[in-house]
């Protein structure tokens, strides 16, 4: 059998062998996915009326999660830059994990946008040539382009690296370095374009600010590396793949600086909105203080701010950041805090009050929550499968010809526990 075919056969075998814990983890994710698919079929049957969205608040939990995940996807670049540009060996050692997270995150992004469509059967209208791609005018067309490009880059580069190692060769940096440089620029572009998707709307003053792009990047480089930190530690604990302490320390530093910058941006935004209140501030008023008696988001945004402030305090003090328990607490707080702040905290106030002054309270329904959980599960499944194959190759236990000859290699898999970080999408 040729190496490529053998690679895929070995990969499938690898995915299908694992401990009880591994299978339990997969089963839990599949179960959540099945529930989500059933709920989504309700949405297909009855229309999007089964969501909490309406003409007043026409984007909700789906687009909130989408926006958050674009940030997580982009954050892989914080491993790619030190690994390939600054040639840090400890980061290079774990860079594939970051790229795996990016792939899972982009898959989730595409799914979140797809379930938000009223006519998913017509999604082919978005394909260049086959459909009618409104490029370069529509920012959504840009988003389709940058997200699919990013997915391709993050699949192809790790594939080249892994396939080389699988065949017992060291990957040739000259071959994939151009791809790495493109991927770095591309990572910045996916989140900038997503910010422009919102900030380009003259109809929505809350989003119509040049700070949105920088804020998106700062919050992305907070939540993304925080997730990577937790993922690295779980892999270190449950597999034979050992993560250098220095790589976690480096990501902790990235999270720290990004969160400091992010909080500064939030402060700048609040100052501008509230120093002299104009109509532009209505959305921010709704978010932080309540507006005309509507205040559903107020407890959420202040909780998010409290979480981010606690996290930044822990992270900023060196001694505290060095403690794994405190670092992990800070990461969890930042992950949830950013999820609220740039998820619902960003999407919903953009719609309220409506451009002609109406107020409304949006609450996600069971369908939206269940479908969102399912997409998170699919993302975790994608990451689990990618890591399950990548880790033994990185360890050198899964190579061309070894896969079937040494079944021992199959045990060096990923045994991810059921309590792995799952993100706060159920909030």
């Amino acid at each position, binding site marked *: 059998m040729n190496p490529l075919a053998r690679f895929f056969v070995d990969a499938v075998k690898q995915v299908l062998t694992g401990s009880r814990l591994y299978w339990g983890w997969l089963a839990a994710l599949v179960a959540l996915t099945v529930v989500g698919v059933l709920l989504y079929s309700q949405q*297909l049957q009855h229309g999007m009326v089964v969501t909490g969205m309406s003409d007043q608040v026409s984007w909700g939990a789906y687009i909130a999660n989408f926006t958050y995940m674009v940030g997580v996807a982009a954050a892989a670049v914080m491993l790619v830059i030190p690994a390939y540009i600054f040639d840090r060996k400890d980061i290079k050692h774990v860079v594939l994990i970051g790229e795996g997270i990016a792939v899972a995150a982009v898959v989730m992004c*595409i799914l979140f946008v797809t379930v938000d*469509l009223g006519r998913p059967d017509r999604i082919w*209208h978005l394909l260049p040539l086959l459909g009618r791609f409104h490029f370069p005018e529509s920012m959504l067309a840009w988003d389709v382009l940058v997200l699919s490009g990013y997915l391709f880059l993050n699949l192809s580069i790790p594939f080249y690296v892994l396939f080389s190692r699988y065949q017992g060769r060291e990957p040739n940096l000259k071959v994939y370095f151009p791809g790495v440089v493109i991927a770095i620029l591309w990572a910045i572009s996916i989140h900038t374009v997503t910010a422009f998707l919102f900030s380009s709307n003259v109809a929505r003053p809350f989003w119509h600010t040049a700070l949105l792009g920088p804020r998106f990047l700062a919050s992305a480089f907070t939540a993304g590396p925080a997730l990577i930190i937790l993922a690295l530690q779980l892999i270190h604990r449950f597999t034979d793949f050992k993560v250098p302490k220095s790589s976690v320390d480096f990501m902790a530093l990235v999270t720290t600086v990004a969160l400091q910058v992010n909080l500064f941006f939030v402060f700048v935004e609040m100052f501008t909105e509230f120093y002299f209140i104009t109509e532009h501030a209505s959305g921010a008023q709704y978010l932080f203080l309540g507006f005309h008696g509507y205040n559903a988001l107020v407890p959420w945004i202040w909780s998010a701010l409290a979480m981010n402030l606690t996290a930044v305090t822990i992270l900023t003090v060196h001694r505290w950041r060095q403690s794994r328990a405190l670092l992990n607490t800070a990461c969890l707080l930042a992950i949830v805090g950013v999820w609220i702040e740039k998820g619902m905290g960003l999407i919903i106030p953009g719609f309220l009050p409506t451009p002609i002054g109406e107020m409304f309270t949006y609450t996600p329904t069971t369908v939206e929550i269940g479908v969102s959980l399912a997409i998170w599960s699919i993302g975790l499944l994608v990451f689990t499968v990618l890591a399950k194959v990548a880790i033994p190759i990185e360890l050198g236990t899964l190579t061309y010809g070894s896969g079937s000859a040494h079944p021992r290699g199959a045990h060096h898999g990923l045994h991810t526990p059921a309590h792995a970080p799952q993100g706060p999408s159920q909030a």
Partner: protein
Amino acid sequence: MTEKHPVPGEGAPQVSRRSLLKKGGLLGAIATFFGAGGAVAASNALQEDGAVADAVGDFFQQHYKKMSPEEIQAAIGRIEREAKRTYGADITVGNDPPLEGVVFGYALNLSKCKGTRRCVEACMAENNQSRDSQIQYIRVLELEHGHMDLNESDPYYDEKSVPQQGKVYMPIQCMQCNNPPCVKACPVEATWKEPDGVVVIDYNWCIGCRYCMTACPYWARHFNWTPPTIPKEQINKDTHYLSNRPRMKGVMEKCTFCLQRSRRGRLPACLEACPTGARVFGNLLDPNSDIRYVLENKNVFRLKEDLGTEPKFWYYTD
């Protein structure tokens, strides 16, 4: 506003579309995996003659501007048959092109408007909006006299006791912007500005992403959150492909200045229904038109003119 009733019975067992997986790349695959919308339609249709072929035809239908005259005729045939199946009504779907040398404009006299909402009713009857979900193209706001802050307006005032002392009524509908942000936003060019200045939607091409809705500063675009419902006897059978033909769930719709009427020299339904004569409509390119008279002789203004959207809908007072 939107009273939402999921309509049971529309749903049907989903058909696997794995055979289509080979078509068109990653997004195509996702579309197919999640694209049971079409499959639902198809399996529903299995029970009825010719419906399967129509569902397939709908699925592969091209963009309005890409279709040949024959393909448009075939699409119209499918729409008419679908209306018969869904509503039991024999509708005709016209396709009148824009008139040469005509750009439509609208003006509304705020001094005359008394907030009766007759325009809203007439619009719904004319344009076949879904009754259960109460889609309305015209939103009448009640404002305090002397104030123009829309955030202080009330769209839910009681029309039975109008006009109220000290209140002003301001109907808002699609402004048919000359520089429409909604058109720019659409990722698939499902909405565009016609040569007569009217912004239209190809309901068969819209993917329902609602980005246009986000882009509109006038809240003039509305989404079919439910499968539309209209009692058979209330269907307006005289329709246009780009305007008031029956829509489907999951797509956008909006005011088109009644182009099914205006392209035939008639006035929009909202204007005819207005009991106070507050509305003026006509050809902006005709120097002798009523609309031109208003623009030249009244103190007119446009809503949110500062956004640069160039509305073709003016307000004025006596």
